């Protein structure tokens, strides 16, 4: 076990844990943002530089500070390490720079982007960005690419986090896409106009932190914050079958995998569950999905007031029980 101090908070964590995961143990506002790191994907992280932190003491053995900011998602902790995240002006300045760089070629078209409301870059730029850009030059643009009937690739919005590449590499057995080109001319693409069609290809949509890869069967059907997320499952022979149904009335508009509080998929799902099972009858609904209050998706989803039956005198016991057993509001 290693004892580290993160933003003045001491935690004890197993050796080999990364600084980011140590921060996630603490939780809350001290957790550095991560655009390219994705826990279930081996080898991810270190690319976007959003999670840079300052290590003011390397370890108890060697308490010298690390000379440069380090990517917290790929740097393992050492006993006695002291890390500064929100406390370091240098980190906040660097993060501002990363947002600016990422937004150079990412169009600010959130109003027409399908990812709006659940976009990591949108949140990241809101928290760490500036109100204006200093970039005056031309932006890069790409020709539209058809990669099949299920997934829309919109390269203009891609921030080259490589998550979809790792997903394709590690989840599917017929990888046809990857990074082509170099530098700011590099792009995610298929080799010679291939179609991405394998049973788990839809997961690249879930791992994409921005609107570069979206669900063609859902595009422009609705804004996510107008839909109602429900936890549901089905007996699927290919995957765990545990999903979120994004519904409007009784219509299932979209099916996605379930994600944890850091937006990472808990169980990857197959394409059949994602694209073909769009009827309520296909699923066993478990109940409303809990969405963090801070998320824009929770807009317009009002929480029911928490009643305290004790304050209402002479309430019949049956009513008290009923109020206590009232389904929890799905938005907290």
């Amino acid at each position, binding site marked *: 076990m290693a004892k580290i101090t993160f933003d003045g908070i001491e935690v004890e964590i197993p050796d080999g844990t990364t600084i980011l995961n140590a921060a996630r143990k603490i939780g809350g506002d001290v957790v550095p943002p991560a655009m390219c790191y994705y826990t279930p994907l081996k080898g991810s992280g270190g690319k976007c530089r*959003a999670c840079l932190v300052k290590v003011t003491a390397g370890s108890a053995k060697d308490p010298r500070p690390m000379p440069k900011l380090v990517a917290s998602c790929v740097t393992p902790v050492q006993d006695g390490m002291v890390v500064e995240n929100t406390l370091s002006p240098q980190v906040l300045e660097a993060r501002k720079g990363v947002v600016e*760089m990422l937004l150079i070629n990412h169009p600010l078209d959130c109003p027409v982007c399908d990812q709006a409301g659940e976009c990591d870059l949108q949140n990241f730029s809101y928290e760490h960005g500036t109100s204006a850009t200093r970039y005056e030059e031309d932006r890069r643009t790409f020709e539209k690419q058809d990669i099949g009937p299920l997934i829309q690739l919109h390269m203009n919005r891609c921030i080259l986090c490589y998550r979809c590449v790792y997903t394709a590499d590690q989840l599917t057995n017929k990888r046809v896409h990857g990074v082509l080109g170099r530098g700011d001319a*590099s792009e995610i693409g298929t080799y010679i106009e291939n179609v991405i069609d394998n049973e788990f290809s839809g997961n690249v949509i879930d791992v994409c932190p921005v609107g570069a890869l979206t669900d063609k069967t859902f595009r422009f059907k609705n804004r996510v914050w107008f839909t109602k997320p429900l936890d549901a499952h089905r007996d699927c022979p290919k995957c765990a079958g545990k999903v979120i149904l994004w519904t409007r009335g009784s219509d299932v508009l979209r099916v996605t995998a379930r994600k944890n509080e850091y937006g990472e998929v808990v169980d990857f799902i197959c394409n059949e569950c994602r694209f073909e099972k769009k009827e309520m009858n296909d699923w066993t609904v478990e109940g409303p999905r809990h969405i963090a209050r801070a998320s824009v998706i929770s807009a317009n989803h009002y929480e029911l007031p928490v009643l305290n039956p004790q304050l209402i005198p002479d309430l019949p016991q049956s009513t008290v029980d009923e109020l206590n057993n009232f389904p929890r509001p799905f938005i907290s």
Partner: protein
Amino acid sequence: MGRKILTEHINVPDIHTLAVYRKMGGYRSVEKALKTMTSEEVVEEVKKSGLRGRGGAGFPTGMKWSFLAKPEGKPRYLVCNADESEPGTFKDRVLMEKIPHALIEGMITSSYALGARTSYIYIRGELMFVLRILEKAIAEAYAAGFLGENILGSGYSLDLHVHPGGGAYICGEETALLESLEGKRGNPRNKPPFPAVQGLYACPTVVNNVESIASVPWIVNNTGEEYAKIGVGRSTGTKLISAGGHLNKPGVYEIELGLPVEEFLFSDEYCGGIWKGRQFKAVVAGGSSVPILPAHLFLKTAEGVPRVMTYESLSEGGFVSGTMLGSGGFIAMDDTTCIVRNTWNFARFYHHESCGQCSPCREGTGWMEKILHRIEHGHGHMHDIDLLVNVSKQIEGNTICPLGDAAAWPVASAVRHFREEFEWHVKHPGAATQPGAVYRGAEEAALV
């Protein structure tokens, strides 16, 4: 006349052949190491020599070797980084082209020291003709029993392969090189783990520059102590300097570290001074990735101490008034050089060569190039100059590999030392875009 270690026999006719190389004393270190020394003793000699990596970073070679993880059923590899692609640096190709057996001898001795049974020379793809020379030399070494099974009856076996890269600058970064050697896209890896622990095919690996490896035979033959006697302080031995730019005698020179810069630049034995008797304006001392220095700060430090050609002396003053010896890619510039155009040219290179893996480098290098393009072509604004510095700061130190730093340092240092030239370009958009237009100090400033 400076002492020569690497280039002593370089002009001997047919030195590229095994027969002539042997006649000049070649492969003695292999015989000595394999027959009379343990691998630990070879490492110890290299440590004693104080040899520092000649690829640019200048990390002590012996220390790097001693970091190599202990074998645990895994093979160990030695990889020679022959992907020389730093603008202004062209020293390794001379060694490989003229005296290929020096590198092969170094590879065998070093591989023995590290316990490697398979070693690779990763060569830049554009140097196909050098690759052919190396392949021929390797075939000769195999035929003579210096490579292959049971070398010289010592029981030690080694296979040596030459692998051409695709010609990407980033593949000169050691982890990107390993990725490329494994057949993948040449993207740098996150460190840790370092190659000494998890390198080629996830096995302990040492990556060394051509010049470093080629220095090992001399060290083994003459002992590390002898090598350490050459040079000054922690900069021991000799160093190849590829001198280019506005010089009377550009070329590759082997110097003893500690040579006064003035002597290197102006004496007839070396560069012979600035061409056509023009004024010396600036220098890039160690390849295009190191900070540019104006002439006066190159010849003497800010404190007025004359500089010598060592890692320490050239970096005296940090990045405020110093630079780095780096790879030894020496580019001299006379007073007809437009610093803005030169900086734009460097920025263009790094923009083109950024692998695009991490955001500050991918987007920042392009941004810097575009700002510099604007200033150079008469469309710049005064605020662009500060913006340029700010963008370079956002890149510096925040990227996966040192390419970001390499892109940022020349730009930041050019603005630091030649700011008035950038301002002149902004103020005189018409004049600045004239062919050959160069800011020449106070006289032109008075024209404003």
